[in-house]
């Protein structure tokens, strides 16, 4: 079953047999009053904290975000439902403080926000959900930060994934390695002639990531890294993950470590764009009875642009253990159209079809989505 936002019914409320609320009206008024006072108090505290920061010096934070909401028809083997979907909409804050010379302290705090009912499978009732977040230093020697952040391999997808963050469209349904990693130390070099490198040390903090009872408690047990070169029209990336835990199936396990290599190429011109990703992954799970396997995958995407219109399509294939440990084939085909109302605002429509096939039992799962959506960046 596709990991799609599932709707939950609203929380039930106590009612008397007659249908009327059984809460004492006087008690309810007192509760409401306390809630109002509590809310005001919290807001005042927040404004004082924010204002105090302003009084010290201008913080100068930059706010950014994206609202991406679609009305979609989600169809799997057994159900077909219409949903309102908030697709990785986000609110972020970033900034820099000059420390002297070219050295600055940098930060980014980014959270997913929900324009639908704010509920999803992972944390029911969650309104803000952490995305990339870091604090660090930047200067002539590069960028160093401590974070929860997308892995270097994930960032190496560049902009090839034209259905990024969209239900049934994101390449995470086909390729291993689309991870947001916790507890990372990230270093990125300055860009020389368009070329830069990124290396991330992932601290597993003693977890048994290999399934053999050993503790991954070192600094270099898991590493994600990438080289990136870009100019006006071309963007290339080469990435490597060493024993990075990713979603993948091995027996009853759903998160196991992988060694992966990803090569990405992207070309952007005035009227068309092309992109391709090749990836090879081999799991390093050492659980009893498991045989490690090497698997491959690719993504090809393209777009044609004219005026405010863009038509784009994407094809993905792999035999990676996304849904089944022994996968025959994962496949995705998608097509979409954008109409730009303004530079930060667009309407879009897309259709995407996914299929996962088991090599052992010949079972398969299929999902498809047809969606009409609106996106605004701010």
């Amino acid at each position, binding site marked *: 079953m596709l990991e799609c936002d599932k709707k939950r019914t609203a929380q039930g409320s106590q009612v008397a047999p007659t249908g009327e609320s059984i809460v004492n009206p006087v008690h309810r008024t007192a509760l409401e009053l306390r809630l109002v006072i509590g809310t005001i108090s919290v807001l005042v505290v927040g404004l004082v904290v924010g204002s105090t920061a302003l009084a010290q010096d201008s913080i100068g934070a930059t706010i950014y975000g994206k609202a991406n909401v679609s009305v979609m028809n989600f169809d799997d083997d057994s159900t077909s439902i219409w949903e309102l979907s908030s697709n990785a909409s986000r609110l972020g804050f970033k900034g820099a403080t000059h420390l002297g010379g070219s050295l600055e302290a940098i930060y980014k705090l980014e959270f997913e926000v929900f324009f639908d009912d704010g509920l999803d499978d992972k944390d029911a009732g969650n309104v803000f959900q952490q995305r990339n977040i870091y604090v660090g230093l930047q200067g002539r020697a590069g960028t160093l930060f401590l974070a929860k952040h997308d892995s270097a391999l994930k960032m190496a997808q560049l902009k090839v994934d034209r259905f990024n963050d969209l239900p049934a469209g994101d390449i995470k349904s086909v390729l291993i390695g689309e991870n947001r990693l916790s507890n990372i130390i990230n270093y990125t070099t300055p860009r020389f002639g368009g070329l830069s490198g*990124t290396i991330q040390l992932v601290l597993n903090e003693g977890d048994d990531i290999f399934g053999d009872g050993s503790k991954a408690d070192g600094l270099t047990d898991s590493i994600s890294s990438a080289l990136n070169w870009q100019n006006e029209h071309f963007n290339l990336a080469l990435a490597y993950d060493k024993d990075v835990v990713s979603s993948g199936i091995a027996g009853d396990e759903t998160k196991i470590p992988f060694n992966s290599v990803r090569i990405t190429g992207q070309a952007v011109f005035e009227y068309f764009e092309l992109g391709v990703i090749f990836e090879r992954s081999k799991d390093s799970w050492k659980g009893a009875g498991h045989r490690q396997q090497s698997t491959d995958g690719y993504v090809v995407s393209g777009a044609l642009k004219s005026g405010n219109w863009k038509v784009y399509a994407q094809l993905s294939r792999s035999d990676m253990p996304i849904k089944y440990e022994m996968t025959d084939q994962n496949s995705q085909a998608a097509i979409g159209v954008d109409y730009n109302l303004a530079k930060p605002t667009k309407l879009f429509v897309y259709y995407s079809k996914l299929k996962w096939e088991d090599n052992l039992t010949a079972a398969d799962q299929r999902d498809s989505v047809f969606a009409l959506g609106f996106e605004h960046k701010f």
Partner: protein
Amino acid sequence: MLLLAIFAGWAAIPGFADPEAVDAADSMDFEQFHATDVWTIGIGQPKRDLNEVEADPTDRKSTAISTIADSTNPTHRSVPQRQISNPYGFGSGRSNQSAAQATEVMFRNMAKQCPEGWQKDREWSTPTTDGFLLHYEFHCLNQPS
């Protein structure tokens, strides 16, 4: 709820919206992502007056330094003067942005600092190891005197 309130307070600061940051946020180019941030002086560092500004020749960022009006400035005695700087060049090298690109960054910063408009009072360039450093001295319009 407290987190939301703190951010509400923080957002009450005259911060800036940057739609282009959304796409840059997912890339590995962290230098570009923070290129349009408006700098603040490190807390605890003294503010500098105009005569003591040091231009860092390899610095790609605009340095926003707010100062109290210089009493020797005959034109803007009572309006806070601001100065920002940005490197540019005409060839390869670390200051590899063009004068036009440097100017755009400067205008973004001025627009962010002075959302009700500004007046550029002075413009000059000083040489660096691989180009020039562009300096603007300006003040915000509609500022109380």
